[in-house]
């Protein structure tokens, strides 16, 4: 396996604020500052040690360039404002090429949805060939799910099993929007109101408010700090066009993310069997099934059976979305994509509530995006640095 400079990069601190449908009294500025102070404290560094920044606050409207002033410091490097795995990869690249040594990545959102908290219905207002037909995000993702059900006989119950598993994880995470909720079953998912066939309400992600941040640095620097570094083993992106503009159908875009996963596996020298935790992107229940197939955990068309066979629980072979994900942890702005990386890091570093711990987890996979979004990014993280 060729040496990759990504392997010299570690994530050394993570912080999630509390997530909720509505965080009274908070705005995205107060939340991002909490997250930033959280990671600085956890890493035991000074604000002035941070020389690279990629932070945005969508409601306040601060771009990374503007937000870089928040610390009152003069960062050497500023990232683009695309959050999530892509932002972590960008920061890692900047560190690997010597443009920065300690990069802060974070985002927060509050106040966007007002008090309603419903799924924002007109999420994509400017798409010429879809916008006039009454489509919205859930409906576009549903095309893909429905086609899969048609081709492979995938059952609603399989989708519901995914949703129940994810939501029951979130109910046990103290920071999650849905913390403290009673456990649910697949039947409860099926009994919830229909949103866009085949998705019931509980098959869909929520909208919420919250913030998060993480710190990235070199493995060398990490050794000098009192931190639990988690290492990047491999990563890849797959971009196939402007999100939500094309017919997002299964046979065209169902395998989106495959190229990203192949690249990540190649860099890590690993395959699906080496993954201990699957922090997959969960905008809709079906996307988990799609990713298991696309990333090679099971054969094409068998994702439905795969999730029904006891694989995806915390005690299963491939536990999914251990923090509750977009469905029950948080889905605020773009920070939710970064929170997939954070979930993987915290699970590997053991910074999760006991009830959600995956014992002995060494390697985790985090993903962003899905088929209707027409992009899918993949990152594999590990407790051990690749030598």
């Amino acid at each position, binding site marked *: 396996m060729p040496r990759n400079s990504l392997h010299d990069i570690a994530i050394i601190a993570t912080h999630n604020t509390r997530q909720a449908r509505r965080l009274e009294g908070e705005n995205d500025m107060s939340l991002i500052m909490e997250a930033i102070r959280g990671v600085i404290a956890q890493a035991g560094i000074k604000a002035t040690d941070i020389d690279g920044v990629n932070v945005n606050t969508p409601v306040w409207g601060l771009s990374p360039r503007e937000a870089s002033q928040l610390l009152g410091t003069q960062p050497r490097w500023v990232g683009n404002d695309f959050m999530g795995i892509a932002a972590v990869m960008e920061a890692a690249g900047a560190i690997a090429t010597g443009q920065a040594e300690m990069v802060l990545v974070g985002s927060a959102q509050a106040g966007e949805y007002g008090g309603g908290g*419903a*799924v924002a*219905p*007109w999420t994509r*207002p*400017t*798409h*010429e*060939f*879809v*916008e*006039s*037909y*009454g*489509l*919205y995000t*859930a*409906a576009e993702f*549903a*095309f*893909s799910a*429905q*086609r899969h059900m*048609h081709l492979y006989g995938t059952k609603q119950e399989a989708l519901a099993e995914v949703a129940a598993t994810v939501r029951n994880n979130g109910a046990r995470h103290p920071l999650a929007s849905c913390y403290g909720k009673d456990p649910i079953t697949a039947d409860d998912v099926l009994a919830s*109101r*229909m*949103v*866009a*066939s085949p998705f019931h*309400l509980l098959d869909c992600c929520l909208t919420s408010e919250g913030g998060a941040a993480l710190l990235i640095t070199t493995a060398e620097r990490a050794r000098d700090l009192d931190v639990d570094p988690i290492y990047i083993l491999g990563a890849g992106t797959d971009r196939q066009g402007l999100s939500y*503009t*094309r*017919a997002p*159908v*299964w046979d065209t875009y169902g395998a989106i993310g495959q190229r990203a996963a192949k690249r990540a596996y190649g860099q890590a020298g690993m395959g699906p069997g080496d993954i201990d935790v699957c922090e997959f992107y969960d905008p809709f229940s079906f996307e988990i099934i799609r990713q298991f197939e696309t990333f090679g955990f099971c054969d094409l068309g068998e994702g439905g059976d795969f999730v029904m066979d006891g694989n995806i629980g915390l005690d299963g072979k491939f536990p999914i979305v251990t923090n509750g994900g977009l469905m029950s942890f948080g889905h605020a702005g773009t920070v939710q994509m970064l929170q997939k990386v954070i979930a993987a890091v915290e699970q590997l570093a053991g910074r999760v509530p006991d009830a959600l711990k995956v014992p002995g987890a060494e390697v985790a996979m985090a993903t962003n995006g899905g088929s209707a979004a027409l992009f899918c990014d993949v990152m594999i993280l590990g407790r051990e640095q690749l030598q």
Partner: protein
Amino acid sequence: MSNQEQQLLQTLRAHVGEQATAVVARDPVNLPTIRNWCDAIGDTNPVYTEVDESDIEAPAAMLDVWTMAGNIPRSYDPNDPRNKVFALLNKAGYRTVVGANTKEIYCRPLRLGELLTGKMTLIDVSDLKTTGLGCGYFVSTLTEFTNQQGELVGSWEFRTFSFKPRERSSKGSKDRQPVPEHLQVRPRPGKMQETEFFWDGCDQGELRIQQCNGCERLAHPPVVRCPECGSYDLGHRAASGKATLHAFVEPVHPPMPFMQYPYICGVVELEEGTRLITNIVHCAPEQVEIGMPLELVFQQPDPDLTLPMFRPAVPSINKTTLNFDDLQEGQTLPLYPIDVTTNLVVGGAIATRDFEDIHHEVAAAKRAGLKDVFMNVLTTNGICARYVSEWAGPDARVKEIDIRLGAPNVVGDTMTLSATLVSKQRVDGKGRVTLNLRVANSMGNHVTGTVTLEFPTQAAAGGSL
């Protein structure tokens, strides 16, 4: 029921069993009237018009046409029990009358030259009933048709509802938040210079798909560089409008104030080999299935927005009769959308000799509370017969149409016919098939009911050798 109502009902029911004066048709069964009817209804079965005169059969659904009064001043029939009952009901405040059910039984096909007589009997007045329209009484008549030899050739049972309209409550509408103006209409597409050809096409009734002038590859949504050959020289072609349904979704929540529910979003695969997102219209969500054939139909959801949409493709006419033995209980007939045009409504009314003004005069229809003229029952009957016959083939015969009348078919709407085969059996060496029929439009079910068809069977065909 109050004493007053009981007295009314007693008076009404006293007329049950009474018969109106027999009506003798003005003309015998004749080819010009048949041709006229076939033209109006769109029925092209050759057995009605194209064979030797001695073999010509009148369309079964024309049964009532022959004895219709036509556009002549009607003389009041003092014996007509229905008139008597209607007069009583009118006096008691039950002034609005709508057709509720019609059931026609066709004993055998009629031949040219037969002269029909219709005898109507009042057969039932219901108890006081409350429906969605209001409360009132159902009045049923049975008309039996005989020919000049006195042979019974068919019958027509007609049930009407005389009612006091229900008071409409405006409760609830006050509490609702007003929909902002910009959400009352669908979002307008954000057109670009590069995509103008598409929207220009829509205005001209043409679905245009971008095509590379180099390698002829199609692209939708349009691109700026051909993904196949790399050419920047891009043109477009007109799509035929034929497509199949690749995937669909019925969005139900959250509510889109600018959409009419229910609606279907579909990914359709064009015959030319590319796909687009659109709405599937003119069929109910439960009738939509992956793979169904579709046809292009431009729609104007708002006055200044024309969008290409797709609906069930009109099925082709079966030129050879289906084999009775191949038919399966539970099988469905293809959906059949028919635009309710002025031509169809007015043409159908006149061809069925129905000169009621509500079927040909917009002002009269408006007085009746509708925005345009609407289809008469006999035209609906004829179209139902045509639908099942075009599926079954030219040798199948309609034996019975038993339907419940619902939402009116107003000009500008589209009626979509659908049917399921619910039973098949052999009767007297012939194959009998009963279909559950539904005709829906934008307001709901226009009619629901059953149609019975008779098929020649192998045994019968063998006998004629």
